[in-house]
């Protein structure tokens, strides 16, 4: 391939030989079209008129008062489909179209990437199959229904724990048999080269806009930028706008599940070790023999034992730091934030907000923080209700 897609020692394309021609074709098309005026014109029109870019940078006043410093929210939850995922699916979907592909496949965890792919499949009239772990199908039923309404076929994956990892395995297997007419619309900034680069590219508007908007609204750059990290696409999107501003701290927040002292979490960068999975050398949750560990997190979108290789690099170089918050803190913050700001945040994004709550009293009052509100929480209402039923007392 033209470039080997390495971020320091991380990344690469560790995949069976059968997938190499397809990855090479995608890399070549991406290089050809990423600066192509027609492609950019089409993509920008879609971003603006269809998806709703630019998204606002909102000063969350009551939440800021609660934590004791200024918090701005990058409102990716306002995009069509309800999450940042649409940036990537419009980009890759358009790329697939320019390549002349007629069929899309994708994997999904929480269903947001599946939904965003189904939206693009419908928009472009492409046959779309979504691989989704059976556990996630059960816990993200609303998104499954939406995907079907949009005409996508949802394929439940029974293997393993029935979560995102297993959905990726199955999507890769399907792709090996259908590489000739099918575009694999990968959902996060992970997987084999060129996906980490492509996904970051299509998520970069988040960071670009946030930087500019912060300068306009606050008159200076933020002190810190935080985002949740599962595979890491929303985080790499917003971080990318500030990578060259060393005074801006970058904080990725992983799913601490039941706590890092248990095995029921998905805090890959906080506790994992380096290995090779799903095409990339990166941090993984694995046992001492290299078998991939099961993960658990209240948020289906973070429930993944790997992480995008660029995050592994940012951790290794110290440019970003990675922390985790537990399910219970996330639920506390979900209620707190919803009632203070009138916004139901996705449980994924709530991880970043929960970490900000934890900083209460620790950061100077003149601190400016931006949190990426990567998606909205409508899809998570059943999960929240399951864990914290709205009894008369809590109402």
């Amino acid at each position, binding site marked *: *391939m033209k470039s*080997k897609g390495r971020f320091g020692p991380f990344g*690469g*394309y*560790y*995949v*069976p*030989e*059968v997938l*190499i*021609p*397809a990855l090479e074709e995608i890399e070549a098309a991406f290089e050809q079209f990423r600066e192509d005026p027609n492609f950019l014109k089409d993509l920008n029109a879609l971003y603006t008129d269809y998806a709703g870019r630019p998204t606002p940078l909102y000063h969350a006043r009551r939440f800021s008062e609660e934590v004791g410093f200024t918090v701005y929210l990058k409102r990716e939850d306002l995009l069509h489909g309800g999450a940042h995922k649409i940036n990537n699916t419009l980009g890759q979907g358009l790329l697939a179209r320019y390549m002349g592909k007629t069929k899309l496949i994708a994997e999904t965890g929480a269903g947001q990437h599946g939904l965003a792919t189904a939206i693009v499949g419908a928009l472009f009239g492409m046959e779309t199959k979504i691989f989704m772990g059976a556990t996630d199908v059960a816990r993200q039923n609303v998104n499954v229904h939406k995907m079907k309404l949009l005409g996508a076929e949802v394929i439940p994956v029974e*293997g*393993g724990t029935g979560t995102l*990892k297993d959905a990726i*395995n199955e999507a*890769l*297997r399907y792709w*090996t*048999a*259908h*590489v*000739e007419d099918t575009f694999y619309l990968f959902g996060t900034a992970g997987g084999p080269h060129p996906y980490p680069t492509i996904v970051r590219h299509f998520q970069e508007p988040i960071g670009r806009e946030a930087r500019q908007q912060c300068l306009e609204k606050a008159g200076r750059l933020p002190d810190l930028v935080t985002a949740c990290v599962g595979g890491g696409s929303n985080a790499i999107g917003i971080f990318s706008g500030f990578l060259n501003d060393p005074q801006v701290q970058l904080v990725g927040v992983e799913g601490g599940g039941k706590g890092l002292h248990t095995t029921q979490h998905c805090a890959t960068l906080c506790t994992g*070790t*380096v*290995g*090779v*999975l*799903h*095409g990339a*050398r990166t941090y*993984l949750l*694995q046992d*001492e*023999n*290299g*078998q*991939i560990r099961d993960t658990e997190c209240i948020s289906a979108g973070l429930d993944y034992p790997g992480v995008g290789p660029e995050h592994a690099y940012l951790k290794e170089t110290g440019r970003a730091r990675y922390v985790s918050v537990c399910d219970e803190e996330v639920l506390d913050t979900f209620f707190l934030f919803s009632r203070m700001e009138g916004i139901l945040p996705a449980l994924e994004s709530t991880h970043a907000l929960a970490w900000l709550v934890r900083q209460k009293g620790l950061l100077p009052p003149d601190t400016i923080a931006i949190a990426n509100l990567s998606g909205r929480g409508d899809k998570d209402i059943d999960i929240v209700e399951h864990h914290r039923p709205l009894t008369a007392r809590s109402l």
Partner: protein
Amino acid sequence: MNPYQSCFSKLNRAALIPFFVIGDPSYDISLQLVKAAVDAGADILELGIPFSDPVADGPTIQKADLRALKAGITPAKALQFIREITAYKPIPIGLLVYYNLLVQYGTERFLQDFKKAGGTSVLVADLSIDDADEIAIPAKKAGLETVFMATPNTPDERLRRIAEKTTGFIYTVSLLGTTGERQALSNAVRPLVARLKRLTDKPVCVGFGISTPQHACEVARAGADGVIIGSRIVKFIEEAPDNPEKMRENITRFLSEVRAALPPKGPTAKTDA
């Protein structure tokens, strides 16, 4: 002459290469089954170390991996298994492994231990020719042969590079897809074997989807130097979960039938290729 060259040159037919997941369904039963395959006339063994996320494999082998993992198989136990097989009968053993298992064990140390156990070659399912040196250099140092995969969509230029990096045999994937039984042999086999034979004199062994003696015969007639049969054999284990004796009988009978179906090498086979 390496063990494969010596094996292929000795045979007047395509080599019979059964595949097993080490430790499926348990260490002891797996050992009996692989020994039975050796007794039934296997010329080379292809053995896999179970992995939690085998993306190049279809459901049959994925389930075998999970059975073996449940039985507690680790890379260290897999090496012990190989030692027991080579002590039973010296036979070339090709290892199929996913890269992360090597990375965690330490690639160099693993390959040295594998060689000491009697192993012959290593094939990393998720390592392409572009990163060949990550395995080829330590394999050479350990005295092992390398096996790389070629698939129907691999262009000629890559086939040449695959042939250059291969010292054992080229594992030729008969179709676009994962491992698994198929009703009919893929029609991609003949053209791919023919292309490889034009480009290289490295031995060409064909796997993926070979499920019947007839398939094996067709592959051999297409000019393959070996036929690799995995999912059909592994299925015999899945089909008789509580009956190791039946597994053994079925595997023995099937391999004997396949071996009998392999035509002698000769001008006809060459013309067909």
